[in-house]
């Protein structure tokens, strides 16, 4: 406990965080043991991975204790629990891949879980770096426009010839050395900072109402500029990178932040209108968007072609049923991209509706905690940034899980903290670092206020 905390008896709840981290780690260990038991696996060394993950989490906890002692104690353990469940499932699929290789008498592929733990380390280090560098989140408001520029550069980096590459139809990847990276994931962070900085300055102007239609205030037509710009930007992402998911995510986050900043529901209505229009245009103009929609409506019409992924995913969920097959006892490897986009389908099969509901409730907790930081923080920029970052996590979760369960059309995105994929994990840990920083500011007792209150109490 810091001196300040001791003096004013404000609990930092850091020990609760430690207890939750240990709990999360133990869940991961149990999952891992069950996987190895059910698949009779003993070769793909588990304890090295598990202990590495545990040590990384403890180090991060120590840094939070030092650099952000008042930060929300639930946020990090919840993300760590999701990450550990993801690691266990990636390990489980590694075992399947190794068994298949043994059956075909080929060499076993390098387990992906090692690389994922490496990326976990990178992500956690960056989370700590955020805590060190960003001493106060209000510093970020100063780099609003730089953030915006960096975001756009990151987003369009894969379009550069020689650097970018097309994977599964979407041009989202860059190659540096032997590593591939999805810079769009980092763009989520910098663009959200930009949105927050931009909107917090203009919110009063954008909230001005000229006329009312059916009781809803309509903003002035000349203020529609930023929204239109954002709309065109999202369309550009869709056209140039052929990525429906990222495009939808950015536009959604922008509308939500615009609404929070101005309090005008009409912005949401106008934004939704634009979304419908662009959705219709995209359906007419792009074959790949059309296929996505058709497969969504009639997945079994082409179950062995375009509908294959979603149909296999539904088969996986169905096989899991209410309680799941148990770790290591289903057939998640039958679903394509089970480690990345379709990891929820793999988890849904082996953990069942009960297990997947528990995981979704972890996201609910994350949303609630992010929102709590947004409400409690004392400056509008911090509040806007916190709710923006929370929305990024929530919308991404909804778009990808809604896609693999056929609630909405399937778009390629990773599931935050669960999916295999370095860029996503790193970006999400940076988001987590910022949320911890903002919640630290929100929960830290303000010296003058506290002193006054103590005086009153005396």
């Amino acid at each position, binding site marked *: 406990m810091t001196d300040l905390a001791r003096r004013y008896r404000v609990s930092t709840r850091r020990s609760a965080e430690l207890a939750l981290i240990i709990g999360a780690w133990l869940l991961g260990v149990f999952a891992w043991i069950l996987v190895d038991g059910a698949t009779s696996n003993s070769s793909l060394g588990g304890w090295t991975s598990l202990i590495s993950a545990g040590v990384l989490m403890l180090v991060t906890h120590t840094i939070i204790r030092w650099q952000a002692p008042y930060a929300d104690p639930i946020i990090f353990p919840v993300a760590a629990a999701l990450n550990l469940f993801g690691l266990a499932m990636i390990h489980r699929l590694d075992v399947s891949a190794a068994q298949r290789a043994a*059956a075909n008498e080929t060499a076993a592929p390098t387990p992906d879980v090692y690389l994922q733990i490496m990326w976990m380390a990178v992500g956690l280090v960056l989370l700590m770096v955020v805590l060190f560098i960003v001493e106060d989140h209000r510093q970020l408001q100063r780099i609003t426009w730089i953030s915006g520029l960096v975001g756009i550069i990151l987003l369009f980096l894969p379009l550069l010839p020689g650097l970018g590459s097309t994977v599964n139809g979407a041009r989202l990847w860059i190659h540096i050395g032997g590593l591939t990276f999805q810079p769009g994931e980092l763009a989520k962070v910098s663009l959200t900072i930009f949105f927050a900085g931009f909107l917090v300055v203009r919110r009063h102007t954008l909230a001005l109402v000229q006329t009312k239609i059916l009781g809803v205030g309509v903003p002035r037509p000349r203020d529609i500029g930023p929204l239109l710009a954002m709309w065109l930007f999202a369309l550009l992402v869709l056209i140039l990178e052929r990525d429906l998911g990222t495009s939808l995510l950015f536009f959604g986050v922008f509308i939500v932040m615009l609404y929070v900043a101005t309090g005008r529901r009409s912005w949401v209505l106008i934004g939704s209108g634009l979304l419908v229009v662009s959705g219709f245009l995209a359906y007419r103009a792009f074959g790949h968007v059309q296929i996505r929609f058709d497969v969504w409506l009639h997945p079994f019409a082409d179950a*062995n072609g375009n509908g294959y992924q979603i149909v296999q995913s539904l088969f996986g969920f169905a*096989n899991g049923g*209410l309680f799941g097959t148990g770790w290591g006892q*289903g057939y998640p490897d039958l679903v394509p991209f089970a480690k990345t986009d379709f990891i929820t389908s793999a988890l849904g099969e082996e953990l069942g*509706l009960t297990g997947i509901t528990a995981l979704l409730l972890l996201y*609910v907790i994350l949303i609630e905690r992010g929102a709590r930081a947004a409400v409690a923080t004392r400056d509008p920029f911090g*509040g806007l940034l916190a709710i923006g970052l929370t929305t990024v996590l929530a919308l991404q979760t909804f778009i990808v899980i*809604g896609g693999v369960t056929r609630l909405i059309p399937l778009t390629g995105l990773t599931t935050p903290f669960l999916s295999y994929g370095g860029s996503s994990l790193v970006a999400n840990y940076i988001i987590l670092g910022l949320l911890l920083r903002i919640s630290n500011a929100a929960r830290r007792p303000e010296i003058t206020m506290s002193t006054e209150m103590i005086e009153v109490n005396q």
Partner: protein
Amino acid sequence: MNRQINRVTAGLIFLMLALIANLSFVQVFKAKDYRNAAGNQRVLRAEYSRERGPMLLGSKTIAESVPTKDTLKFLRTYANGPEYAPITGYYSVVYGASALELQENDVLSGNDSRFFVDRLQQLIAGRKPKGGAIRLSINAAAQTAAYKALNGRTGAVVALDPQTGAILAMATSPSYDPNTLSSHDPQTIQQTWDVLNKDTDKPMLDRPLAMTLPPGSTFKLVTAAAALESGNYTASSSLPGPAQMKLPLTDRTLGNWTGSSCGKNDKVTLEEALAISCNTAFAYLGMQLGSDALETQAKKFGFESSFDVPMTAATSHFPSHLDAPQTAMSAIGQYDVRATALQMAMVAAGIANDGVVMKPYLVSQVLGPDLTILQNTTPSAFSRAMSSENAAILRDMMINVVAHGTGSNARIPGIKVGGKTGTAENTPGESAHAWFVGIAPGDNPSVAVAVVLEHGGGATEVSGNALAAPIAARVMRAVLDR
């Protein structure tokens, strides 16, 4: 701003709840549809990841699952596949299962409720689940003798234990190899399937149970039984046996297969008429007894009843409401009378077992995954077809057929054999079916057998004694170990 943040939070949480609601729909309400959907490999893989139980003959194994390195973890293999094919059936990824693989699937796959305790133990111990086993009533030597004696000719053999109804041999010919259909290569399976189905000899037809043919003169056993049971006839009763007789109400005449009279002054005893298979005497006898008496007697032997052995055998047929000429023809197993090889074996077995017909069965024991016996089949009677005394009389008449009459090729040195030949015309112009039913040893039979060669199995001169009797003799010798 906080009001908006709270609203947005509620909205985002609502999205998560929408995901949970949709997952409930997918994982609970639609789960069954998806599990049974075409192209879902999970059910198949789960089925093949379990070790399916074996089929046993004594201590021999005729069907078992061996581990593979495939995605389908176990491969079903059959020892002497074609010989046992009508019994074991196949277990195919493409075409499902047949015969015992289908009928006993619950036991073999381990889903049977009798395995509840085993399954619980497997679950707790984390062991891989395993199916139960079945032990068959088949006598391996008799089965081999039957299949080898058929030697590729189109036909069927059924041997029964008259006292229990246990099926000792059940062979079909030509046959197929279930190993090919049970492989893990869908293309091979499909090609083999197509070839087998295009084959005009129908190798996948389970002839002993599925093929009904006119039983011809072997049906005279039923007519003789009806005569004895009527109380008006004994073995020495005298019957008219002319070389030819005119059938009433028609222009047709019925003749004996030798073309000559059956005895001096066209008179013949019932015993002698059976021994030389006198058509005119039995046609006369049939008309005297009436179609109702014949029908009742046939039903007591199992005609018009369905038997699950556990595969369901085709129902053998004796027509109702016949006029005199139809009755005459039916009495010698022609007209619309149809019988399976199983049915004719049951007629012989009923006579052998003092008049009591036992229900036929193939599975004698159900065993758990660890081969502990869970259930022994208890033999049960189907009906009393005739009195014990009349059965003894008819047995002696059958022994006379082999010793002095038309069934000479069924003789086995040192023991008394009873039997009856049959040469059944089906469609005019096509060659007849050769039948033989037999029992041995004559005094206290422990085997009853029926053999049929469809269209004589391709022979030019069709006769039950020449073609079918030697097969019956080989099977009976195998059972009696002589």
